[in-house]
């Protein structure tokens, strides 16, 4: 196939991507970004794990014996389990949103994008409640090693969820305006990659911070 013929083929078929890898640069860049995020969260989780169990003063995350006296743990497992369910369900809704966009289902796209953002907001609400409760219990960023590492790790994750919710609301608005059709599937797929990554990080944080003593 000569060059001119190839170029004509590019114009006719949107599946043609003129890059050295044959892959879309936006998707490639986004996976690279996700890779860098793995290293960021890897370092935050490693720091939490390094200082786990090293706090000299309370409050402690789990029930702890201090000089023969039982000090109750501050972590609220039922609440966090609920918020974990919510975040997992939001991931399911995100793939349903992508599915709707691929099929050109405008109302379905808007609905599932909004539902994903709503569930993400509920997760954030749970986190704000948890942080406020911890503050009233005397746990701050400066209280002990648990407070410092816990707030930094979960706070960074919460910030990522917040960005994701804004991202999804923007997409839902554009979908409502009819600007997110099947030809814009990649835009929603990239938003989905971000949202699922946020979910994946929580899948790691939840057992390491909350479930394993």
């Amino acid at each position, binding site marked *: 196939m000569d060059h001119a013929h190839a170029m004509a083929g590019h114009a006719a078929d949107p599946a043609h*991507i003129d890059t050295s890898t044959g892959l879309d640069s936006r998707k490639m860049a986004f996976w690279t970004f*996700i890779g860098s995020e793995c290293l960021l969260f890897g370092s935050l989780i*490693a720091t939490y794990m*390094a200082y786990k169990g090293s706090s000299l003063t309370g409050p402690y*995350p789990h029930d702890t014996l201090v000089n023969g006296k039982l000090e109750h743990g501050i972590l609220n497992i039922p609440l966090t389990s609920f918020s974990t369910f919510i975040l997992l369900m939001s991931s399911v809704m995100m793939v349903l949103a992508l599915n709707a966009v691929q099929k050109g289902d405008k109302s379905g796209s808007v609905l599932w994008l909004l539902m994903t953002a709503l569930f993400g907001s509920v997760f954030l609400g749970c986190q704000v409640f948890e942080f406020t409760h911890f503050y009233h219990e005397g746990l701050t960023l400066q209280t002990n090693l648990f407070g410092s590492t816990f707030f930094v790790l979960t706070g960074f994750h919460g910030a990522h969820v917040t960005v994701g919710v804004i991202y999804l609301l923007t997409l839902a608005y554009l979908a409502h305006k009819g600007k997110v059709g099947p030809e814009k599937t990649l835009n929603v797929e990239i938003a989905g990659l971000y949202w699922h990554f946020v979910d994946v990080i929580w899948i790691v944080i939840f057992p390491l911070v909350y*479930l394993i003593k």
Partner: protein
Amino acid sequence: MSSTTREIVHDQHTHPTRRFYLFIGAGLLLLTVLEILGYVGETKGVYASGTAAILILILSGIKFFMVVAYFMHLKFDNKLFTGIFAFPALLGTLVIVGCIMLFHVVHGVATEYHANTPADAQHVSGGPRGG
């Protein structure tokens, strides 16, 4: 494969159906319930602490794989994306495991060794505890 052919075949992976996504979602919920049961089992003394931890980590590993493979489409997408994600993810995991080994396995042994002297024993007993 010529560059032109490669461009044509790119991104032509099929996306799973809605039912498949719901099936994966149900699986994720089930695994999360099992994780929480592992925690409850440890709290009530059904499992030893180490056993529960290993069980919970295996379950969360399966969840991690399911989301990355099916929801993020790595199972259906170009293998280059898998490499771009897997390398830093493995590096991050290695750092986490390294810190656990260094601060909780190796350092734990060192703390016991220092506690052999009375002064150090007093220091250790009044020192780090759960938190």
